[in-house]
């Protein structure tokens, strides 16, 4: 088994209203950041994953997103899987 650092990005679907993104955009404008637009607020989920191979890790994360981490009806998701250095360097 090897361990991988996984980063999952979950954001509200582009065609749906994002009330939180709208509120943050208006606040940024009021703070003077006139150049900011299309603000969207989503979730960033990071985890360590033990898996036999990178392909297997990829498949597992895909399944995690479909089953739990993202709501297919209102959210889109993307993720990256990067091998972690040898166990010695892996923090607890």
């Amino acid at each position, binding site marked *: 088994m090897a361990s991988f650092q996984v980063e999952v990005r979950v954001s509200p679907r582009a065609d749906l209203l994002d009330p939180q993104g709208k*509120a943050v955009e208006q*606040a940024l404008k009021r703070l003077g950041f006139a150049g900011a637009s299309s603000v969207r607020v989503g979730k960033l989920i990071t985890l360590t994953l033990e898996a036999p191979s990178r392909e297997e890790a990829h498949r597992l994360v895909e399944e995690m997103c479909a089953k739990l981490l993202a709501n297919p009806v209102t959210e889109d998701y993307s993720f990256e899987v990067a091998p972690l250095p040898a166990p010695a360097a892996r923090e607890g």
Partner: protein
Amino acid sequence: MRAGVIVFPGSNCDHDTFHVLSQIVGADTRFVFHRETDLSDLDLVVLPGGFSYGDYLRAGAIARLSPVIEALHEFAQRGGLVMGICNGFQILCEAGLLPGALAVNTCLEFRCQWVHLRVENAATPFTSSLSPGQVLRIPIAHQEGRYIAPPDLLEELEENGQVVFRYCRPDGSLDLKEREAPYNPNGSLNHIAGIVNRQGNVLGMMPHPERASEKVLSSEDGRAIFMSALAAVGAAR
């Protein structure tokens, strides 16, 4: 006492707080819209509960950008009394008028229920009519009410007596080392439910005293906090 209740877009306990201040405590009370910047006519400014700006991004994160907050900093420096209840406490922390922050409850859920508070410091303008160790039955209603602060800041708060209320059992007992205590539904460090700033004139508390100020609502314990502020203003005049 002349009291002002700030109305942010999204505040929803403003009318409740106004009712208790004007009808029950008998203070001369007015609403302060969040764009106003002149607080000079007031002795006490209350930031009420609610979901200012929908609590989007972080509870209180956007409300602290309102013009009235600038004026509030000066008002507090001049010794005016400031009281942040629930969302008001979150805004005061985000604005730097109070130390620490309010994070999501450990149970991750919104919790609306009665709790018991123990008075830890009866020498503040908000607790002068209460006695140390006294137990108050006051309700909470929040999802981001877990008070947290870095270890050194937490120690400082304890040493300066800035902790005013702690969540406790009905008999007033509590155990500082106990995690997930049933009497502390949000998991606040040291069971902290309310604090004051160093000067002692700015109070932030998560429980809602305005919801426990009339017998018909099954508790009047909250009224004493408003009455203490009234007395403090009277004495200061």
